[in-house]
Protein backbone atom coordinates (compact mmCIF):
# COMPACT_ATOMS: atom_id res chain seq x y z
CA UNK A 1 0.00 0.00 0.00
CA UNK A 2 2.34 2.74 -1.11
CA UNK A 3 1.21 6.37 -0.69
CA UNK A 4 -1.61 5.60 1.69
CA UNK A 5 -2.82 8.70 3.51
CA UNK A 6 -4.54 8.77 6.88
CA UNK A 7 -6.62 11.56 8.33
CA UNK A 8 -8.81 11.79 11.41
CA UNK A 9 -11.07 14.82 10.93
CA UNK A 10 -13.19 16.24 13.72
CA UNK A 11 -16.15 17.42 11.64
CA UNK A 12 -18.42 15.75 9.09
CA UNK A 13 -17.60 18.46 6.52
CA UNK A 14 -13.87 17.83 6.78
CA UNK A 15 -14.49 14.10 6.38
CA UNK A 16 -16.59 14.68 3.26
CA UNK A 17 -13.89 16.97 1.80
CA UNK A 18 -11.22 14.34 2.45
CA UNK A 19 -13.32 11.56 0.91
CA UNK A 20 -14.42 13.65 -2.07
CA UNK A 21 -10.99 15.17 -2.70
CA UNK A 22 -9.03 11.94 -3.03
CA UNK A 23 -8.05 11.11 -6.59
CA UNK A 24 -8.17 7.37 -5.92
CA UNK A 25 -10.23 5.21 -3.60
CA UNK A 26 -10.99 6.84 -0.25
CA UNK A 27 -12.55 4.82 2.56
CA UNK A 28 -14.14 5.92 5.81
CA UNK A 29 -12.80 3.95 8.79
CA UNK A 30 -15.05 3.10 11.72
CA UNK A 31 -14.18 -0.22 13.39
CA UNK A 32 -12.01 -1.40 10.51
CA UNK A 33 -12.88 -5.05 11.09
CA UNK A 34 -13.69 -5.52 7.40
CA UNK A 35 -11.58 -2.72 5.86
CA UNK A 36 -8.26 -3.71 7.41
CA UNK A 37 -8.74 -7.34 6.42
CA UNK A 38 -9.55 -6.31 2.84
CA UNK A 39 -6.54 -4.00 2.69
CA UNK A 40 -4.30 -6.77 4.00
CA UNK A 41 -5.54 -9.24 1.40
CA UNK A 42 -5.16 -6.68 -1.38
CA UNK A 43 -8.86 -6.80 -2.25
CA UNK A 44 -9.19 -3.13 -1.29
CA UNK A 45 -6.45 -0.65 -2.16
CA UNK A 46 -7.45 2.74 -0.82
CA UNK A 47 -5.22 5.76 -1.18
CA UNK A 48 -6.95 7.59 1.65
CA UNK A 49 -8.29 6.38 5.00
CA UNK A 50 -10.61 8.77 6.82
CA UNK A 51 -10.99 7.79 10.48
CA UNK A 52 -14.45 9.10 11.44
CA UNK A 53 -14.20 8.25 15.14
CA UNK A 54 -12.95 11.71 16.17
CA UNK A 55 -16.13 13.37 14.91
CA UNK A 56 -18.44 14.22 17.84
CA UNK A 57 -21.71 12.22 17.93
CA UNK A 58 -20.47 9.52 15.58
CA UNK A 59 -19.89 7.18 18.52
CA UNK A 60 -22.91 6.51 20.69
CA UNK A 61 -26.69 6.28 20.67
CA UNK A 62 -28.96 9.22 21.35
CA UNK A 63 -32.70 9.35 21.64
CA UNK A 64 -35.13 11.80 20.13
CA UNK A 65 -38.87 11.84 20.79
CA UNK A 66 -39.57 9.20 18.15
CA UNK A 67 -36.21 7.65 17.21
CA UNK A 68 -32.93 6.18 18.28
CA UNK A 69 -29.98 7.75 16.47
CA UNK A 70 -26.95 5.46 16.20
CA UNK A 71 -23.67 7.13 15.27
CA UNK A 72 -21.79 5.54 12.37
CA UNK A 73 -18.79 4.42 14.42
CA UNK A 74 -20.72 3.06 17.42
CA UNK A 75 -19.20 -0.35 18.23
CA UNK A 76 -21.31 -3.45 18.82
CA UNK A 77 -20.61 -3.56 22.56
CA UNK A 78 -22.12 -0.10 22.98
CA UNK A 79 -25.31 -1.10 21.16
CA UNK A 80 -25.76 -4.30 23.20
CA UNK A 81 -25.13 -2.42 26.44
CA UNK A 82 -27.62 0.35 25.62
CA UNK A 83 -30.59 -0.67 27.74
CA UNK A 84 -33.28 1.43 26.10
CA UNK A 85 -32.28 0.43 22.58
CA UNK A 86 -31.76 -3.28 23.24
CA UNK A 87 -35.07 -3.36 25.06
CA UNK A 88 -36.88 -1.53 22.28
CA UNK A 89 -35.36 -3.61 19.46
CA UNK A 90 -34.20 -7.00 20.78
CA UNK A 91 -34.03 -8.37 17.23
CA UNK A 92 -31.61 -5.73 15.92
CA UNK A 93 -29.54 -6.19 19.07
CA UNK A 94 -29.45 -9.98 18.55
CA UNK A 95 -28.18 -9.45 15.03
CA UNK A 96 -25.43 -7.10 16.22
CA UNK A 97 -24.48 -9.55 19.00
CA UNK A 98 -23.98 -12.36 16.51
CA UNK A 99 -21.22 -10.53 14.62
CA UNK A 100 -17.81 -12.00 15.35
CA UNK A 101 -16.07 -12.33 18.67
CA UNK A 102 -15.91 -10.06 21.71
CA UNK A 103 -12.80 -8.49 20.14
CA UNK A 104 -14.73 -7.72 16.95
CA UNK A 105 -17.65 -6.38 19.01
CA UNK A 106 -15.25 -3.88 20.59
CA UNK A 107 -14.75 -2.23 17.20
CA UNK A 108 -17.26 -3.31 14.57
CA UNK A 109 -20.10 -0.88 13.81
CA UNK A 110 -23.64 -1.31 12.52
CA UNK A 111 -23.01 1.16 9.69
CA UNK A 112 -19.86 -0.73 8.72
CA UNK A 113 -21.82 -3.97 8.66
CA UNK A 114 -24.20 -2.34 6.15
CA UNK A 115 -21.60 -0.59 4.00
CA UNK A 116 -19.37 -3.66 3.73
CA UNK A 117 -22.33 -4.84 1.65
CA UNK A 118 -22.26 -8.53 2.49
CA UNK A 119 -25.56 -10.30 1.84
CA UNK A 120 -24.89 -12.21 5.08
CA UNK A 121 -24.50 -9.12 7.34
CA UNK A 122 -26.23 -10.17 10.57
CA UNK A 123 -27.31 -6.77 11.88
CA UNK A 124 -29.04 -5.61 8.71
CA UNK A 125 -32.24 -7.70 8.20
CA UNK A 126 -33.80 -6.60 11.50
CA UNK A 127 -32.64 -3.02 10.89
CA UNK A 128 -34.43 -2.97 7.52
CA UNK A 129 -37.44 -4.65 9.13
CA UNK A 130 -37.59 -1.79 11.68
CA UNK A 131 -37.62 0.76 8.80
CA UNK A 132 -34.19 2.11 9.68
CA UNK A 133 -33.08 5.24 7.84
CA UNK A 134 -29.49 5.97 6.84
CA UNK A 135 -28.42 9.61 7.11
CA UNK A 136 -25.77 10.25 4.47
CA UNK A 137 -23.36 13.18 4.32
CA UNK A 138 -21.76 14.12 1.02
CA UNK A 139 -20.49 16.97 -1.14
CA UNK A 140 -24.11 18.05 -1.85
CA UNK A 141 -25.08 18.08 1.82
CA UNK A 142 -27.07 15.57 3.80
CA UNK A 143 -29.66 13.17 2.45
CA UNK A 144 -31.63 10.30 3.88
CA UNK A 145 -32.31 6.87 2.43
CA UNK A 146 -34.00 3.70 3.60
CA UNK A 147 -31.39 1.22 4.83
CA UNK A 148 -32.46 -1.26 2.12
CA UNK A 149 -31.56 1.31 -0.57
CA UNK A 150 -27.85 1.36 0.34
CA UNK A 151 -26.60 -2.08 -0.70
CA UNK A 152 -26.93 -2.85 -4.41
CA UNK A 153 -24.93 -6.10 -4.59
CA UNK A 154 -22.10 -7.96 -2.86
CA UNK A 155 -19.49 -5.29 -1.97
CA UNK A 156 -21.49 -2.62 -3.85
CA UNK A 157 -23.42 0.34 -2.45
CA UNK A 158 -25.42 3.25 -3.83
CA UNK A 159 -23.17 5.74 -2.01
CA UNK A 160 -21.58 8.27 -4.35
CA UNK A 161 -18.00 9.54 -4.21
CA UNK A 162 -17.47 11.62 -1.10
CA UNK A 163 -20.56 10.28 0.63
CA UNK A 164 -20.63 8.32 3.86
CA UNK A 165 -23.33 7.22 6.27
CA UNK A 166 -23.09 9.35 9.42
CA UNK A 167 -25.89 7.73 11.41
CA UNK A 168 -28.88 5.45 11.42
CA UNK A 169 -32.26 6.62 12.63
CA UNK A 170 -34.38 3.80 13.93
CA UNK A 171 -37.98 4.67 14.83
CA UNK A 172 -39.01 3.77 18.37
CA UNK A 173 -41.49 0.87 18.55
CA UNK A 174 -45.19 1.59 18.63
CA UNK A 175 -47.38 -0.11 21.23
CA UNK A 176 -47.43 -3.89 20.64
CA UNK A 177 -44.59 -3.72 18.14
CA UNK A 178 -41.45 -5.86 18.42
CA UNK A 179 -38.91 -7.78 16.41
CA UNK A 180 -36.67 -10.83 16.23
CA UNK A 181 -33.66 -11.98 14.26
CA UNK A 182 -32.51 -15.54 13.79
CA UNK A 183 -29.64 -16.87 11.76
CA UNK A 184 -28.62 -20.36 10.91
CA UNK A 185 -24.98 -21.46 11.02
CA UNK A 186 -23.70 -25.04 11.22
CA UNK A 187 -21.95 -24.35 14.55
CA UNK A 188 -22.69 -22.26 17.64
CA UNK A 189 -20.43 -19.20 17.20
CA UNK A 190 -18.00 -17.40 14.90
CA UNK A 191 -19.51 -18.21 11.54
CA UNK A 192 -21.19 -16.51 8.61
CA UNK A 193 -24.94 -16.82 8.16
CA UNK A 194 -26.24 -19.56 5.90
CA UNK A 195 -29.59 -17.81 6.21
CA UNK A 196 -30.68 -14.90 8.41
CA UNK A 197 -34.21 -13.65 8.98
CA UNK A 198 -35.50 -10.50 10.68
CA UNK A 199 -39.21 -10.08 11.40
CA UNK A 200 -40.86 -6.94 12.77
CA UNK A 201 -44.56 -6.95 13.68
CA UNK A 202 -47.16 -4.64 15.15
CA UNK A 203 -50.26 -6.24 16.67
CA UNK A 204 -53.65 -4.90 17.71
CA UNK A 205 -55.11 -5.52 21.17
CA UNK A 206 -56.48 -8.88 20.00
CA UNK A 207 -53.15 -10.19 18.76
CA UNK A 208 -53.96 -9.58 15.09
CA UNK A 209 -51.03 -8.31 13.04
CA UNK A 210 -51.59 -4.79 11.67
CA UNK A 211 -48.12 -4.16 10.21
CA UNK A 212 -45.17 -6.39 9.39
CA UNK A 213 -41.80 -6.45 7.67
CA UNK A 214 -39.97 -9.66 6.87
CA UNK A 215 -36.36 -9.48 5.70
CA UNK A 216 -34.05 -12.32 4.67
CA UNK A 217 -30.25 -12.30 4.60
CA UNK A 218 -27.69 -14.54 2.83
CA UNK A 219 -30.19 -15.91 0.30
CA UNK A 220 -29.69 -13.34 -2.49
CA UNK A 221 -27.10 -10.75 -3.63
CA UNK A 222 -28.60 -8.25 -1.14
CA UNK A 223 -30.91 -8.48 1.84
CA UNK A 224 -34.44 -9.23 0.62
CA UNK A 225 -37.54 -7.44 1.83
CA UNK A 226 -40.21 -10.15 1.55
CA UNK A 227 -43.33 -8.12 0.77
CA UNK A 228 -45.41 -11.26 0.28
CA UNK A 229 -44.28 -12.48 3.71
CA UNK A 230 -45.51 -9.28 5.34
CA UNK A 231 -48.83 -9.65 3.53
CA UNK A 232 -49.12 -13.21 4.85
CA UNK A 233 -48.95 -11.84 8.39
CA UNK A 234 -50.98 -8.63 8.17
CA UNK A 235 -54.61 -9.11 9.16
CA UNK A 236 -53.93 -12.43 10.86
CA UNK A 237 -53.08 -14.05 14.16
CA UNK A 238 -50.10 -16.35 14.13
CA UNK A 239 -51.94 -19.60 13.40
CA UNK A 240 -50.67 -22.59 11.40
CA UNK A 241 -52.21 -21.34 8.20
CA UNK A 242 -50.50 -17.94 8.51
CA UNK A 243 -47.17 -19.58 9.31
CA UNK A 244 -47.45 -21.83 6.26
CA UNK A 245 -48.10 -18.88 3.99
CA UNK A 246 -45.18 -16.97 5.53
CA UNK A 247 -42.92 -20.01 5.07
CA UNK A 248 -43.89 -20.34 1.41
CA UNK A 249 -43.44 -16.60 0.77
CA UNK A 250 -39.97 -16.62 2.34
CA UNK A 251 -38.95 -19.60 0.22
CA UNK A 252 -40.21 -17.93 -2.95
CA UNK A 253 -38.12 -14.80 -2.20
CA UNK A 254 -34.83 -16.76 -2.14
CA UNK A 255 -32.28 -16.56 -4.91
CA UNK A 256 -29.35 -18.08 -3.05
CA UNK A 257 -25.93 -19.26 -4.06
CA UNK A 258 -24.68 -22.82 -3.72
CA UNK A 259 -21.58 -22.97 -1.55
CA UNK A 260 -19.88 -24.95 1.15
CA UNK A 261 -22.17 -23.48 3.79
CA UNK A 262 -25.39 -24.55 2.11
CA UNK A 263 -26.95 -25.64 -1.15
CA UNK A 264 -29.64 -23.64 -2.90
CA UNK A 265 -32.27 -26.15 -1.83
CA UNK A 266 -31.08 -26.15 1.78
CA UNK A 267 -30.89 -22.37 2.11
CA UNK A 268 -34.35 -22.02 0.61
CA UNK A 269 -35.85 -24.53 3.00
CA UNK A 270 -34.10 -22.98 6.03
CA UNK A 271 -35.33 -19.49 5.02
CA UNK A 272 -38.90 -20.69 5.44
CA UNK A 273 -38.16 -22.31 8.79
CA UNK A 274 -36.36 -19.24 10.18
CA UNK A 275 -39.17 -16.94 9.01
CA UNK A 276 -41.68 -19.05 10.96
CA UNK A 277 -39.52 -19.13 14.08
CA UNK A 278 -38.58 -15.44 13.99
CA UNK A 279 -42.24 -14.50 13.47
CA UNK A 280 -43.24 -16.54 16.53
CA UNK A 281 -40.66 -14.76 18.68
CA UNK A 282 -41.62 -11.32 17.34
CA UNK A 283 -45.33 -11.98 17.99
CA UNK A 284 -44.60 -13.22 21.52
CA UNK A 285 -42.49 -10.17 22.24
CA UNK A 286 -45.10 -7.82 20.81
CA UNK A 287 -47.68 -9.39 23.10
CA UNK A 288 -45.29 -9.44 26.04
CA UNK A 289 -44.74 -5.73 25.69
CA UNK A 290 -48.46 -5.19 25.92
CA UNK A 291 -48.62 -7.20 29.15
CA UNK A 292 -45.57 -5.53 30.66
CA UNK A 293 -46.63 -2.14 29.35
CA UNK A 294 -43.06 -1.06 28.71
CA UNK A 295 -41.01 0.25 25.85
Amino acid at each position, binding site marked *: *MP*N*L*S*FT*APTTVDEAVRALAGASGLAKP*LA*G*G*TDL*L*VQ*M*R*SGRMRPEM*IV*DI*KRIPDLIGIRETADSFVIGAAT*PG*VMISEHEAFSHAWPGITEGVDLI*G*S*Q*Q*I*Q*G*RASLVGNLCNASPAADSIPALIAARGIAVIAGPDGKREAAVEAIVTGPGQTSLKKGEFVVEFRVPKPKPRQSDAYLRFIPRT*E*MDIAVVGCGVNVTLDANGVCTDARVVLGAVAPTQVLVEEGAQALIGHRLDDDTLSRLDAAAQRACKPIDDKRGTIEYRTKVAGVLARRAAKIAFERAQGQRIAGVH
Partner: protein
Amino acid sequence: MPKQHVSTIINDEPVEYLCEPQQTLLDVLRDELNLTGSKEGCSSGDCGACTVIVDGDIVCSCLMLGAEAEGRKITTIEGVAEGDKLHPVQQKFLEHAALQCGFCTPGFIVAAKALLDQNLNPTEEETRYWLAGNLCRCTGYDKIIRAVLDAAAVMRTERAEGVR
Protein backbone atom coordinates in the same frame (compact mmCIF):
# COMPACT_ATOMS: atom_id res chain seq x y z
CA MET B 1 2.61 10.77 3.23
CA PRO B 2 4.66 11.72 6.29
CA LYS B 3 4.67 9.38 9.24
CA GLN B 4 1.92 9.80 11.76
CA HIS B 5 2.93 11.11 15.15
CA VAL B 6 0.97 9.38 17.89
CA SER B 7 0.80 10.08 21.63
CA THR B 8 -0.89 7.37 23.62
CA ILE B 9 -0.80 5.53 26.93
CA ILE B 10 0.39 1.95 26.93
CA ASN B 11 0.39 -0.04 30.17
CA ASP B 12 -0.05 3.18 32.16
CA GLU B 13 3.02 4.82 30.58
CA PRO B 14 2.79 7.76 28.16
CA VAL B 15 4.27 6.64 24.83
CA GLU B 16 5.00 8.54 21.63
CA TYR B 17 5.81 6.96 18.31
CA LEU B 18 5.90 7.56 14.57
CA CYS B 19 4.15 5.11 12.29
CA GLU B 20 3.23 4.64 8.65
CA PRO B 21 -0.51 5.05 7.90
CA GLN B 22 -0.88 1.38 6.98
CA GLN B 23 0.92 0.00 10.05
CA THR B 24 -1.42 -1.77 12.42
CA LEU B 25 -1.30 -1.26 16.16
CA LEU B 26 0.15 -4.79 16.32
CA ASP B 27 2.94 -3.81 13.90
CA VAL B 28 3.70 -0.77 16.05
CA LEU B 29 3.70 -2.70 19.32
CA ARG B 30 5.97 -5.43 18.00
CA ASP B 31 8.22 -3.65 15.50
CA GLU B 32 8.48 -0.09 16.85
CA LEU B 33 8.00 -0.48 20.60
CA ASN B 34 9.50 -3.96 21.09
CA LEU B 35 6.41 -5.13 22.93
CA THR B 36 6.49 -8.57 21.34
CA GLY B 37 4.14 -10.29 23.78
CA SER B 38 1.15 -9.66 21.51
CA LYS B 39 1.39 -12.29 18.76
CA GLU B 40 0.56 -12.19 15.08
CA GLY B 41 -1.48 -15.27 14.25
CA CYS B 42 -3.92 -14.72 11.41
CA SER B 43 -3.79 -10.93 10.78
CA SER B 44 -7.50 -11.05 10.03
CA GLY B 45 -9.14 -10.83 13.44
CA ASP B 46 -9.98 -14.52 13.67
CA CYS B 47 -7.47 -15.94 16.16
CA GLY B 48 -7.22 -13.38 18.97
CA ALA B 49 -3.47 -13.86 19.55
CA CYS B 50 -2.96 -10.09 19.22
CA THR B 51 -5.70 -9.13 21.70
CA VAL B 52 -5.15 -5.88 23.61
CA ILE B 53 -7.45 -3.72 25.74
CA VAL B 54 -8.26 -0.29 24.28
CA ASP B 55 -10.23 2.06 26.54
CA GLY B 56 -11.67 -0.92 28.40
CA ASP B 57 -12.72 -3.04 25.41
CA ILE B 58 -10.75 -5.94 23.96
CA VAL B 59 -9.80 -5.56 20.30
CA CYS B 60 -7.58 -7.38 17.85
CA SER B 61 -4.56 -5.10 17.49
CA CYS B 62 -4.11 -6.47 13.94
CA LEU B 63 -7.43 -4.81 13.01
CA MET B 64 -6.57 -1.37 14.35
CA LEU B 65 -4.20 1.11 12.76
CA GLY B 66 -1.34 2.44 14.86
CA ALA B 67 -2.49 5.94 13.92
CA GLU B 68 -5.86 5.31 15.57
CA ALA B 69 -4.24 4.90 18.99
CA GLU B 70 -3.83 8.67 19.47
CA GLY B 71 -5.07 9.57 22.96
CA ARG B 72 -6.25 6.04 23.77
CA LYS B 73 -5.41 3.95 26.80
CA ILE B 74 -4.01 0.56 25.88
CA THR B 75 -3.16 -2.50 27.95
CA THR B 76 -1.04 -5.26 26.41
CA ILE B 77 0.05 -8.59 27.90
CA GLU B 78 3.17 -6.80 29.18
CA GLY B 79 0.96 -4.69 31.45
CA VAL B 80 -1.06 -7.51 33.00
CA ALA B 81 1.35 -8.53 35.79
CA GLU B 82 2.21 -6.04 38.52
CA GLY B 83 5.99 -6.07 38.47
CA ASP B 84 7.04 -9.56 39.57
CA LYS B 85 3.56 -10.43 40.80
CA LEU B 86 1.62 -12.43 38.24
CA HIS B 87 -2.03 -11.62 37.65
CA PRO B 88 -4.28 -14.41 39.02
CA VAL B 89 -5.16 -15.39 35.43
CA GLN B 90 -1.46 -15.85 34.66
CA GLN B 91 -0.87 -17.79 37.88
CA LYS B 92 -3.80 -20.10 37.18
CA PHE B 93 -2.69 -20.69 33.58
CA LEU B 94 0.56 -22.04 35.04
CA GLU B 95 -1.13 -24.13 37.72
CA HIS B 96 -3.68 -25.65 35.34
CA ALA B 97 -1.14 -26.13 32.53
CA ALA B 98 -3.50 -24.12 30.34
CA LEU B 99 -0.90 -23.73 27.61
CA GLN B 100 1.28 -25.91 25.49
CA CYS B 101 3.04 -24.07 22.67
CA GLY B 102 2.08 -20.75 24.27
CA PHE B 103 1.47 -18.75 21.11
CA CYS B 104 -2.19 -18.05 21.87
CA THR B 105 -1.58 -17.49 25.59
CA PRO B 106 -1.00 -13.70 25.68
CA GLY B 107 -4.26 -13.13 23.80
CA PHE B 108 -6.20 -15.48 26.07
CA ILE B 109 -4.79 -13.86 29.20
CA VAL B 110 -5.55 -10.31 28.07
CA ALA B 111 -9.09 -11.32 27.01
CA ALA B 112 -9.69 -13.23 30.26
CA LYS B 113 -8.38 -10.32 32.35
CA ALA B 114 -10.81 -7.98 30.57
CA LEU B 115 -13.67 -10.38 31.29
CA LEU B 116 -12.81 -10.55 34.99
CA ASP B 117 -12.34 -6.77 35.14
CA GLN B 118 -16.05 -6.42 34.44
CA ASN B 119 -17.47 -9.71 35.77
CA LEU B 120 -15.78 -11.53 38.65
CA ASN B 121 -18.34 -14.31 38.60
CA PRO B 122 -18.76 -15.45 34.99
CA THR B 123 -20.45 -18.76 34.25
CA GLU B 124 -18.58 -21.37 32.25
CA GLU B 125 -20.83 -20.62 29.28
CA GLU B 126 -20.19 -16.85 29.52
CA THR B 127 -16.46 -17.53 29.73
CA ARG B 128 -16.51 -19.80 26.69
CA TYR B 129 -18.46 -17.27 24.62
CA TRP B 130 -16.21 -14.41 25.76
CA LEU B 131 -13.14 -16.37 24.70
CA ALA B 132 -14.65 -17.63 21.42
CA GLY B 133 -12.50 -15.12 19.55
CA ASN B 134 -9.30 -16.70 20.86
CA LEU B 135 -8.16 -19.84 19.11
CA CYS B 136 -5.92 -22.50 20.67
CA ARG B 137 -4.84 -25.50 18.61
CA CYS B 138 -3.08 -27.30 21.50
CA THR B 139 -5.10 -27.48 24.68
CA GLY B 140 -8.65 -28.22 23.60
CA TYR B 141 -9.73 -25.21 25.70
CA ASP B 142 -10.85 -27.09 28.84
CA LYS B 143 -7.77 -26.25 30.85
CA ILE B 144 -7.98 -22.63 29.76
CA ILE B 145 -11.58 -22.36 30.87
CA ARG B 146 -10.79 -24.02 34.20
CA ALA B 147 -7.85 -21.65 34.75
CA VAL B 148 -10.01 -18.58 34.10
CA LEU B 149 -12.83 -19.78 36.36
CA ASP B 150 -10.31 -20.60 39.08
CA ALA B 151 -8.68 -17.18 38.71
CA ALA B 152 -12.15 -15.64 39.07
CA ALA B 153 -12.63 -17.56 42.32
CA VAL B 154 -9.26 -16.34 43.63
CA MET B 155 -10.08 -12.76 42.70
CA ARG B 156 -13.48 -12.98 44.41
CA THR B 157 -11.76 -14.15 47.59
CA GLU B 158 -9.17 -11.38 47.31
CA ARG B 159 -11.95 -8.85 46.71
CA ALA B 160 -13.81 -10.12 49.80
CA GLU B 161 -10.63 -9.82 51.85
CA GLY B 162 -9.97 -6.35 50.52
CA VAL B 163 -6.73 -7.31 48.76
CA ARG B 164 -7.78 -6.43 45.22
